[in-house]
């Protein structure tokens, strides 16, 4: 057995980077990348911490735990999209602005149109911005960091001008029910959205050819091209997925708040990136996990909720949140010693 194992280890690229003097037992352990599972440990750790510190203040009540899910759903959904962008070796900074614009477009279309039209309009915002982001990145060969920095501003400007800064109320109770306010028995509809989007994202990334191509493109573009992967198309698709999930998140905000406003989503970008990275997705492409991103988002939501329940003021919350992000990321993303 000891003779066979090192061979299997060598076939595993991550383990192959490890020091060569490991014994056989460590090789078995070494063949598993433990960092992929660290996010679960972090989740349990954070949950336990707040269960102890804020358990008597209602942290563990069913309604509070459902609140956490409700509050994190838009972040989770954007995080799923961002995983694709990052895995493909790109980044999407425009998501916060897409949230605002899609929510407003949907709200305006709902005034006299059908739900289908409103949802199509909202998602259309995401598709359009995503396509522009992707095409500008690959055709003009501008880094997506800069392209999406630009579209972030363009889209934010559009969101401000479309209703002249005025909030738009949404009275369509079916839309509000489906997109955030409703619940199926005790289960908030937002939990359903989280599960559906996470499941689709996970299957796409891990179980399909497309997902493997995304990872290959972000991991080593030259190698991916040499085996015939159309990396440009993959990058455009990844950025389109990212912006489209942001558009969906925008409509979920609008449904929950029963209204849209240009300020929606403006503070979400860094939370999304933190959630994704805590979940083990590399900022540099080629490695990522949808399930990890969902866990990362739940950790962020739990921290926000728990710190408020504990009665910390805003400045203390900011300090603790910052430390937590560093700690969580250091667990999941630290480069291996070489």
């Amino acid at each position, binding site marked *: 057995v000891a003779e066979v194992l090192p061979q299997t280890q060598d076939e595993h690229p991550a383990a192959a980077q490890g020091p060569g003097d490991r014994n056989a037992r460590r090789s078995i352990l070494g063949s598993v990348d433990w960092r992929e599972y660290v996010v679960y440990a972090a989740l349990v750790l954070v949950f336990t911490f707040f269960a102890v510190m804020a358990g008597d203040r*209602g942290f563990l009540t069913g309604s509070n735990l459902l609140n956490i899910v409700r509050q994190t759903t838009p972040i989770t959904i954007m995080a799923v999209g961002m995983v694709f962008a990052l895995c493909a070796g790109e980044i999407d900074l425009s998501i916060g602005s897409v949230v605002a614009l899609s929510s407003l477009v949907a709200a305006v279309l709902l005034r006299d149109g059908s739900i289908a039209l409103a949802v199509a309009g909202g998602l259309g915002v995401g598709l359009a911005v995503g396509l522009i982001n992707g095409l500008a990145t690959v055709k003009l060969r501008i880094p997506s960091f800069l392209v999406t920095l630009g579209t972030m501003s363009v889209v934010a400007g559009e969101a401000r001008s479309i209703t002249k800064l005025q909030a738009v109320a949404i009275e369509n109770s079916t839309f509000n029910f489906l997109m955030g306010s409703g619940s199926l028995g005790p289960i908030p509809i937002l939990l359903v959205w989280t599960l559906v989007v996470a499941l689709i994202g996970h299957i796409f990334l891990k179980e399909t050819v497309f997902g493997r191509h995304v990872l290959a493109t972000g991991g080593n573009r030259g190698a991916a091209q040499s085996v015939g992967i159309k990396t440009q198309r993959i990058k455009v698709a990844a950025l389109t997925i990212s912006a489209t999930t942001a558009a969906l998140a925008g409509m979920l905000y609008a449904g929950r708040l029963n209204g849209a406003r240009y300020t929606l989503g403006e503070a979400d970008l860094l939370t999304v990136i933190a959630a994704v990275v805590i979940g083990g997705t590399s900022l540099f492409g080629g490695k990522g996990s949808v399930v990890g991103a969902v866990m990362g988002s739940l950790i962020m939501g739990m921290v926000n909720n728990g710190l408020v329940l504990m009665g910390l003021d805003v400045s203390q919350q900011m300090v603790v949140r910052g430390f937590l992000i560093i700690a969580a990321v250091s667990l999941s993303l630290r480069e291996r010693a070489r």
Partner: protein
Amino acid sequence: MKDKSTWRAATVLVFAALLGACSVSEPNGQGDQAAGAGGATATFDLNAPTKGPNGEASTPATSIPDLSDAEVAKVKAARYKVAFLDAGTSTWFNAMRAGANDEVERLGMTVVSTAQADFDPAKQASQVETAMARKPDIIMTLAVDPVSAAQAFKPAVDAGVKIVMVDNGIDGYTAGKEYVSIVTGDHYNMGEGAADLMNQALGGKGKIGYIFHDADFYVTNNRDKAFKAAIEQKYPNIKIAASQGFTAESQTADIASTMLTRNPDLDGIYVSWSAAATGVLAALRDAGNNHVKVTSIDLDATNDLQIAKGGNLFGVTADQPYLEGQVMIRLAAMSLLGKQTPPFVTVKVITETRDNLVEAWRESLHQQPPAAIMNALKK
């Protein structure tokens, strides 16, 4: 071994950070009575008249006389140039700009520069410099930071530009010298008005949550302080059972739902301004809570629909941004004509409930409420 030590170090770091933060919060008890407007307000004098930054008595905006026909003609002939240097963007700023624009048009002026600073003092300083290149006669602004604005607006003061300000003053500046006048809503009375509304909504008795703006910002701090003082001093049977600060509007849903988790028997919630109340209303909806009454400040197209429908939002107080903008331009024109101008001008507080919603929109924003609200009112 490498992996293990990483684990250990990071775990220690997480706990150190969390425990550190907890020990910080202990001296505050629940940590609820923290900085800013969360502090004690027992000494706050609700009856003190609202005064300007240098102790100037206030003049009601409605008592400022209009220009005579001859004066209007004179101003028109001079073709004055105006720069709008707003601090941010919102429905409120839009309404103020609309009031100013109407007056600018009436007086034959032109707008040569328009900017908004995203509440960033450095941005505003650059915008003053940029605007000065167009040689404006009038600058209409909300100074983002009263301290650094003294330096930021110096180029305009040196060039003799007539500066009219809304809400904030600038430290070290005096009316009639560096600037013409300050025009403002009465933020203390707006806060107190929100407390009066809370009293009305609760029938004089109950437990409320207090969600305040946890940042050093003159306008919101004054509203919050006055609300708290009014509840404590005027309404002894209304108790503030929970208080929590926020810095971004997006946090309030979270805060309200945790407040309800900890205090399921709340009867009311106050939140500093209306756009921030949207999250509170969503949290109440999530919890299926029709009992809690919310009061806040400023008019808002989305939230006011709740007022019209008799939802959780009971009422809001507001100022008159359209009138403020109009009066600011008029005061600048008076100053350019060499006339005396009052140093500190206030507009009245409007209290909006379902009964006077349309009137409140007209008086405050100079607008008809959106169709959705009008329809809800008919029902």
